[in-house]
């Protein structure tokens, strides 16, 4: 039951056990990362990404024998473009400094926390996706950003071009869009 891929996009989910005693340090580190200047901005194929610390399963009163995790886990998920192997190559190089603080405090992680050893560790701890939905599965991050910029410029030009004569309209359009 795996469906990590939809169109051009891949749903990556990785769950790693946190070393007992390192949970608070990890939480402080992750919560201190700026969303505007996230390390994931350097992975240009990432649409969305998150790190979540899972303290334990939530037990429902109707469960006769609820599961316990036994230690806290770090969940990392990303919605990314293309194949996961080259993405993890990029992650394990580009995020090497951050990875030391993030996965370096997880049980079984390699030290130094980078390169092929980190990639193998993350793949070992991957949880496959059962069902993946994307509203625009064939669009890459680059496609989306380019399209958003194009739409924004088209809207601005449409306002500016109201009432222009054909020759002036064509000239203004060519100047605005560089054609």
């Amino acid at each position, binding site marked *: 039951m795996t469906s990590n891929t939809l169109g051009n996009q891949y749903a990556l989910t990785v769950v790693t056990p946190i070393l007992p005693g390192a949970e608070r340090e990890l939480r402080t580190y992750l919560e201190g990362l700026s969303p505007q200047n996230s390390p994931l901005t350097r992975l240009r194929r990432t649409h969305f990404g998150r790190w979540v610390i899972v303290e334990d399963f939530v037990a429902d009163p109707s469960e006769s024998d609820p599961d316990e995790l036994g230690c806290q886990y770090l969940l990392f998920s990303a919605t990314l473009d293309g194949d996961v192997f080259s993405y993890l190559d990029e992650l394990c190089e580009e995020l090497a400094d951050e990875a030391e603080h993030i996965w370096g405090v997880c*049980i079984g992680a390699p030290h130094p926390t980078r390169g092929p050893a980190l990639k193998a560790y993350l793949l070992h701890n991957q949880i496959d996706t059962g069902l993946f939905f994307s509203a625009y599965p064939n669009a890459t991050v680059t496609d989306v950003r380019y399209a958003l910029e194009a739409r924004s410029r088209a809207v601005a030009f449409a306002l500016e071009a109201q009432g222009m004569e054909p020759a002036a309209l064509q000239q203004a359009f060519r100047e605005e869009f560089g054609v």
Partner: protein
Amino acid sequence: MTSVSIAAGPAATGTDDRNVNGNAIALTVFSAVKWWGRIELPVFIEVLRRGRNSLSELKQLSFIHAARWSLFSEIPYNGPPQPQRRLHSAHLYFESNFNGGWEEYIDAFSYVLRTGMWAFWGSSFGFPGALPSGPFKDYIRANEIDASHYYAAYPDATATMVLAALEVEPRLERLKWQATWMTPTEFAAAWRAFLIETQPAL
């Protein structure tokens, strides 16, 4: 097809700030699954995956960028000191990347995916049913885990804006090409046609 859209800013998200990046919101939910869910969920998901229009209801929820469901019954083992656990139940992981408000999102999910909601969470312990949405919201809140860090590559864009932009962009490219060889009169007509064609997306 009627689409349900939500317009709200970060101030109205109704969730922890760390689940928010611009207009994008992260929802992360785990639930334990009853024994029969190990059979029902894989079958349901396989039917959805094979059906041609099976995700059309999700597409109606025009505020979702991406979502995923994973059913797992074991956790990868990395050696001590990780406790080696044999899980009694399978567990369902759900995540969503959406825009708008948390409450409105759960409401719309409940109303639009009424049948699908039962198929997804009916086998989860404690699932109160999708409607009325109040108890379901309480259930999701109880099972939700806040993100410690959340990233969105285009945080100011709603899913609707992205879809609209992806519709406009190729038409704008065609117009750019037409601008190089059309007469001014022909181009003015092409520009008007572009505006009419793309008006809903602008």
